[in-house]
């Protein structure tokens, strides 16, 4: 019983009265422990950098921004708990989150209930925007958009051309979604599909899958998984002399880290990224990209995290712009403002289009995608 009282008191004390000079709170739910802690921490760091940049330039509406970051432990049940804490305890007017589709989907019913908008910085499932939740605004591309963009702009850049493709994906919504969409795309381009293999998120030995892929006779292997497993795929593909050209999708491949950890095995691989920190001058808004990269490095964060971290950065910029346009830090006003924002982000222009069932549309921004190659231990444009 005493713990209950303590909990009650600590909660009550966290609810304070709002003064004009109080900072504006932005909530964020990220995996800081558990299986995807590394990537979640990168995104959280991106958000921290953004808050610092915004506050240095005077904040928004004359007030400072305060980031309230909660750990969802890479677990949907905990994700709901973070949402409850942020929405009901801290009463934030807008939240960011939640690294991954399941974690995001778990939070979504709470948004409807508390009527607070959420900027989704990482989630690839189409369900996020098609569930009829008008409080969701996604800035990352779902697999379908990524595949389409790949088909439109990057498909023809490969020589020799892609004739037969294989897939190796992590067995979660992200990997499965990517393999479905890229298979569809490849078929529409007249490309044959060879082996389609999955791997458990925590699997380290991928020899069986690679042995199968090696025999398929394909020329290109699309890999979708987190950076740790991608490193293993590259190393083990080299060990088994898998002949395919390897293309990683999903934008979470942190090529700098691959070069460091996979060494020679990373050479020749291609990577789809949503932010290319090596070529900030090629970004849609070079000055934004440069500001971000400088602020990131100044904080002492590892350069390898930039390709993930930018999502947190852009997420905060989007939320801040909406607060500014709304003229007040209130959830409904922020949501209305989100429909009309046009943010100059590190990735490019962020503006939301309607997606999902009529009358309850969610927002979806169409980000830019890039492909880079690792050559002789350096990241180059292919």
């Amino acid at each position: 019983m005493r713990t209950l009282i303590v909990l009650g008191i600590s909660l009550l004390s966290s609810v304070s009265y709002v003064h004009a000079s109080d900072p504006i709170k932005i909530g964020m739910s990220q995996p800081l422990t558990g299986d995807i802690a590394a990537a979640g921490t990168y995104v959280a760091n991106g958000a921290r950098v953004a808050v610092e940049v915004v506050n240095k330039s005077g904040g928004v509406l004359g007030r400072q921004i305060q980031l309230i970051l909660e750990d969802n432990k890479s677990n949907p049940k905990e994700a709901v708990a973070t949402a409850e804490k942020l929405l009901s305890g801290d009463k934030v007017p807008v939240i960011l989150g939640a690294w991954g589709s399941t974690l995001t989907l778990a939070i979504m019913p709470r948004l409807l209930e508390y009527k607070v908008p959420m900027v989704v910085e990482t989630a690839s499932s189409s369900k996020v925007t098609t569930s009829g939740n008008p409080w969701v605004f996604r800035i990352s591309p779902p697999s379908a958009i990524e595949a389409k963009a790949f088909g439109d702009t990057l498909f023809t850049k490969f020589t020799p051309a892609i004739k037969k493709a294989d897939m190796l994906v992590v067995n979660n919504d992200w990997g499965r979604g990517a393999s479905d969409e890229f298979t569809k795309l490849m078929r529409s381009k007249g490309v044959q599909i060879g082996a389609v293999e999955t791997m458990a998120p925590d699997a380290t030995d991928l020899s069986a899958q690679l042995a199968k892929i090696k025999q398929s006779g394909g020329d290109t292997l699309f890999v979708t998984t987190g950076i740790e497993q991608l490193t293993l795929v590259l190393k083990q593909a080299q060990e088994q002399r898998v002949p395919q050209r390897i293309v990683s999708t999903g934008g979470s491949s942190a090529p700098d880290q691959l070069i460091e950890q996979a060494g020679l095995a990373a050479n020749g691989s291609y990577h789809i990224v949503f932010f290319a920190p090596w070529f900030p001058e090629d970004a849609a808004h070079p000055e934004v990209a440069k500001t971000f990269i400088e602020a990131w490095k100044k904080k002492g964060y590892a350069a390898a995290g930039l390709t993930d971290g930018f999502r947190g950065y852009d997420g905060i910029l989007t939320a801040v712009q909406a607060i500014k346009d709304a003229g007040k830090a209130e959830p409904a006003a922020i949501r209305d403002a989100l429909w009309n924002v046009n943010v100059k982000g590190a990735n490019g222009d962020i503006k939301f289009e309607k997606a999902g069932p009529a009358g309850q549309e969610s927002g979806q921004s169409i980000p830019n995608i890039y492909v880079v190659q690792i050559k002789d231990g350096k990241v180059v444009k292919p």
Partner: protein
Amino acid sequence: MEQLLQHLLNAVVLGGTYALLGIGLTLIFGVMRVANFTHGELYTFGAYMAYALIGPLELNFFVGLAIAVMLGILLGIVIEFMLLRPLQKSDMDTTMLVTIGAWIALQNMELFGWGGVAKSVPHPFPTDPFVIGSVSVAPLRVFVVCVAMVLLVSFYLMINRTTFGIAMRATFQDPEVSSLMGVKINRMFTLTFAIGSGLAASAGALLAPVFVVVPMMGDLVTLKAFAVVILGGLGNIVGATIGGFVLGLAEELGAGYIDSGYRDAMGFILIIAVLLLRPQGLFAPRERTG
């Protein structure tokens, strides 16, 4: 056919490390009656120490591995002394719970100390694989299998040829009688836990350069090691060795010819099948209801 050969080769490589993990766990269970859930964390610890020594501290690769294993043994001794010795009289559920608590704490200490970003251990072996026909294997993996074999063989020699080994096997059979026969139980338990921990740490240190080092790497390892142990029969060292190779084979062939999604379930499907069809275990003549 070519694919099958590659799968078989991979299975041997994988099986060797599973065996190494399995015998450590089965030894601890057999002698101490402790279902040790920190096993995977000692594996992780060995891997991180190998990284620290060979990576940032730039020690010689082989020296680094050796020291990492010794540190693993040391951690094992600390765990035994602080957590298990006071509970020697407790039942298995209690010690199991303590090791689960230690597992959660240790894992998050790794995360706290090293961060979540994966670490990679440099190694001196050429990265170009040995190729025989259409089958290929990396020199580093050959090294790992060789060391694993050496460890397994020297472990058998120790168990079967030394007085210490005989005392250990006696404790295995009956702790009370062996203590009457003059075996110092406390010292025996510490040594057993140290050896088991050392084997886990050496598996971690050996595999660190093959894979990458992350804080959560021990979870799967603990479960796999338990699978190996059950396959071979609890407390059965030969059984655990064979169980390791059986598991490696089941996973490779299962993933290669059935469905890669079920790869990590193979071990458990195998266990359930074994326990149902041959409740006494693949290799264990022991009583199962003990």
